[in-house]
């Protein structure tokens, strides 16, 4: 087999890097004022996986140093942009000055298929109260109320959500009171999010606030049990570039019923009855684990971690689902589907692997992608030299085993933790404790995410919330063959002559999830690491600056 479909590790040994990671770390820190260097030193870790899976502690989910230039966004971006943005049939009103709504307008590439539902789709629209100085001085609640009314009058949506921006919290507008009032008046679901940009230390706070809000205001409103076998929710999949469509295709082929997606290609109606599913699958642990935890406590729906990035990971995730439901029929279909899908993947991989083998990658992105995409690079025979998250927490790096050790600081304490109790009528553990224990003994782990670092090689550099300076130094030191990050890093990295693959927007390509996505990614990386473009940077006269002419005559 050309690629290790069942084995993530590269089949050929990659040439060892002569660079000592500890020395590189020192170099990254050398320029910093002492206090900054001390702080950053805890966020830059040389990986070392101990037997049993323990890894070094990495400081993460901590404040960004002012002036250092990182890539993080804000709480509003995490709440409105990431988690709620991909749901098509809610009118999302940004309560604040115009910018926040404008910048989060269609820029995240969450695809959706409204005609698979009732045809409603407000995602191509941007709704804002466009706050003026008048409202900053006298309060914006009146304008917000009127804006909700106008949204209703013009569009008659089934739900309206309101997102608070920085000044709203400062002037003390009570968006929740306004939403309650308008909900009663209009008779549709209207709910608010206090996701002011300054909350928390990154967009991660916004994910948490979004999870809380959906859980409080939407989940459990509809107890209708959707027909179909093997009923699951897919959480933390945002349908960038059509990823969710590819995963949905596989579910359909396997006879697995998708009740709700959080939140790629989703509708609010799906959230409302998502608690009727029998299993929650988590893709992006960082952004969505809260909903899964709350749903388990309140309704008894267990969750497992999956990953549909990478062909081997996709196969593994499908097998995990089959293992959970433990029906021979499903197991057989899943195996059949994997057997059907893999030949095309293997052929594509075999084609590109001779050109990608041994190349070196770096990934600094998100709260799960920097981990997940290492799967695809492994399949291509490429080595991940260094990786890190923008807004991950320690559990995303080191695994949930460290959760009890995480100190909650002031910034995180300000984010509400909902007190959830089992629902008196609807709590229904989907599987018995004995069954769960049996499955765990067989290797299926519930409510577990092992994190990125245990799967990375010893000596690789793990860097949390890297700065512009560190990125620049890393590139100069390692000269990787490809760098994966986002739009803000893209062109600075490429000026160095090194291709950058955007793993937020996929550079407007994709899908990269599932089997078809893996093939797309192999081809894309082959294109990028073998592009001729980077040879064009020097003109002939820079290569040969001598002035005497030679005359060629044919």
């Amino acid at each position, binding site marked *: 087999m050309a690629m290790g479909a069942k084995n993530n590790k590269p089949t050929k040994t990659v040439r060892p890097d002569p660079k000592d990671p500890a020395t590189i770390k020192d170099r990254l820190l050398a320029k*910093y004022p002492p206090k*900054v260097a001390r702080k950053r030193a805890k966020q830059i870790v040389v990986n070392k996986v101990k037997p049993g899976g323990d890894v070094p502690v990495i400081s993460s989910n901590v404040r960004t140093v*002012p*002036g250092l*230039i990182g890539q993080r*966004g*804000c*709480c*509003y*971006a995490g709440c409105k942009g990431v988690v709620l943005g991909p749901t098509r049939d809610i009118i999302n009103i940004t309560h*604040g*000055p*115009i*910018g926040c*709504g*404008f*910048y989060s*307008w269609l*820029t995240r590439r969450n695809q959706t298929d409204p005609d698979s539902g009732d045809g409603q789709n*407000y995602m191509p*629209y*941007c*709704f*804002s109260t*466009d*706050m*003026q100085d008048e*409202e900053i001085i006298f309060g914006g609640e009146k*304008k917000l*109320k*009127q*804006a909700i009314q*106008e949204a209703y009058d*013009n*569009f008659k949506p089934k739900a309206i959500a309101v997102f608070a921006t*920085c*000044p709203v919290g*400062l*002037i003390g507008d009570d968006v929740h009171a306004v939403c309650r009032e308008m909900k009663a008046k209009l008779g549709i679901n209207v709910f608010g999010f206090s996701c002011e*940009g*300054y*909350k*928390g*230390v*990154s*967009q991660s706070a916004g994910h948490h606030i979004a999870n809380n809000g959906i859980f409080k205001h939407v989940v459990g409103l509809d107890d209708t049990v959707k027909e179909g076998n093997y009923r699951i929710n897919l959480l933390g999949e945002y349908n960038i570039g059509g990823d969710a469509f590819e995963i949905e295709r596989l579910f359909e082929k396997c006879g697995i019923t998708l009740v709700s997606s959080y939140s790629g290609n989703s509708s609010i109606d799906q959230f409302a009855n998502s608690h009727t599913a029998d299993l929650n699958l988590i893709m992006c642990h960082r952004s969505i684990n809260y909903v899964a935890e709350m749903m388990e406590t309140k309704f008894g729906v267990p969750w497992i971690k999956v990953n549909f990035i990478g062909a081997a990971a996709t196969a593994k995730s499908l097998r995990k689902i089959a293992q959970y439901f433990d029906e021979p029929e499903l197991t057989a279909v899943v195996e059949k589907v994997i057997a059907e899908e893999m030949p095309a993947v293997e052929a594509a991989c075999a084609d590109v692997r001779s050109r990608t083998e041994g190349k070196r990658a770096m990934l600094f992105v998100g709260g799960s992608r920097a981990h997940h995409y290492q799967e695809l690079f492994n399949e291509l025979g490429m080595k991940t030299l260094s990786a890190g998250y923008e807004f991950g927490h320690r559990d995303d790096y080191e695994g949930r085993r460290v959760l009890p050790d995480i100190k909650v600081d002031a*910034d995180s304490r*300000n984010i509400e933790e909902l007190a959830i109790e089992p629902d008196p009528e609807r709590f229904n553990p989907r599987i018995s404790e004995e069954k769960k224990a049996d499955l765990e003994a067989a290797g299926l782990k519930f409510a577990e995410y092992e994190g990125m670092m245990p799967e990375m090689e010893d000596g690789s550099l793990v860097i949390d919330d890297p700065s*512009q*300076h560190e990125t*620049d130094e890393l590139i100069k030191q390692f000269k990787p063959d490809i760098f994966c990050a*986002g*739009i*803000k890093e893209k*062109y600075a990295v*490429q*000026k160095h*002559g090194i291709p950058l693959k955007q793993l937020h927007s996929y550079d407007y390509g994709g899908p990269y999830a599932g089997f078809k996505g893996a093939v797309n990614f192999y081809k894309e990386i082959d294109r990028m690491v073998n592009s001729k473009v*980077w040879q064009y*940077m020097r003109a002939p006269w820079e290569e040969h600056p001598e002035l005497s002419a030679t005359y060629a005559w044919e």
Partner: protein
Amino acid sequence: MLLRHTPTEIKERSALTVNPAKTCQPIGAMYAALGIHGCLPHSHGSQGCYAYHRSALTRHYKEPVVAATSAFTEGASVFGGQANLVQAIDNIFTVYNPDVIAVHTTCLSETIGDDVPQIFAKAKADGKVPEGKYVLHASTPSYVGSHVTGFANMTKAMVDYFAESNGRRAKTVNLIPGYVEPSDMTEIRRIAELMGVPTIMFPDTAKVLNGPLTGKYRMFPEGGVTIEELKKSGSSVGTIAMGRTASMPAARALDAKCKVPCEILGLPLGLHGTDAFVDTLRRMAGVSVPAALNLERGQLVDSISDWHQYLYGKRVALVGDPDQVLALTRFLVALDMQPVHIITGTPAGKKYEKSLREAVAGVPADVNIKVPGDMLLFHQWIKNAPVDLIIGNTYAKYIAKDEDTPLIRYGFPIYDRLGHSYFATMGYRGALRLLEKLLDAILDRKDRDADDIDMELVM
């Protein structure tokens, strides 16, 4: 349908903006600051602001856009951002070593009332601003005006902080190009050079946001107005401000501070817009217009006459920033086209709206104008009274596709096409390019829609 819920029926809205035709002040301030050589823009707000602004500018230019942030947390929002900004200034000069840091405020820091000059004084007293390095700031609350206002405020701050009069008048003319593309700034300078006029242009984003690929990343690229030039701007013979909304505050400030007289013009866009610029520059500098420039003008007029039949009477819907919209309206009217739906998202004022109404006074059709308006209303107007052509930024493509109407991308942002960074639309050459774009859009549609019998080889 992309915008499937847009109702044809227009209901008056007083509180809800849908599909805005503007964004907030800070991004304009960031763009202007990038037009200072060796400058690192700094956003005094939470991290989301600079992340969004950098992303938006990067998508538009496909170039690195580096800026820093005070990274406000909840604590800073309560106790004020002084500690964050002082620390940021220290870190920026230590780690990145720019010549100058240009701080702009945000709705967050404005609402809590941070006093940036006082914070600068503290940073200087603490020795955080090294010898020979500069800081400047503009107050840019997001809840006032638009991105164009932010640009105007940062441009004015360049005057407030640096312009000085040395008591003598140099031969230089200050050119304030307005919120235009780096390519436009290059073109405006080229025209002045053709006329032999020494100039100081600020801001100047040419070679900053359209730099080359060489294998070396320079955080502070070659372009941009230098602090030395900004200082000397106070001794220039005069100032030409292009675009009332974006450039007038800086020109007025220079007049007040250093007694440099100014002329406030529209953008040098289209035939008459460029004529006004060239004529003003000629008089101000006391030079004559060279043959080369007369040739360019003549070629433009020649092309207009050659292709007039395809332009005449065509109905156009136009949305964009105020200075561009006014100049484009005048150009379209000069071409005998009919701008019938006109919107800018920027609250540009009554005087501005009056100029716009004067510009369309002779158009033989009903003309809708809204200042400020949004792109939902713009779309509704088009639904109610269709047009032959839409001119607007990338977001207008959703309208264009739904209404099956040709689109010319113009303005900010353009996220989905190459060109604006490199090919100017200012000056006679730029007008020729605009003319080409207009004709391409109109004639491509004509060819597409022609049945076999009506297909024309020659046009």
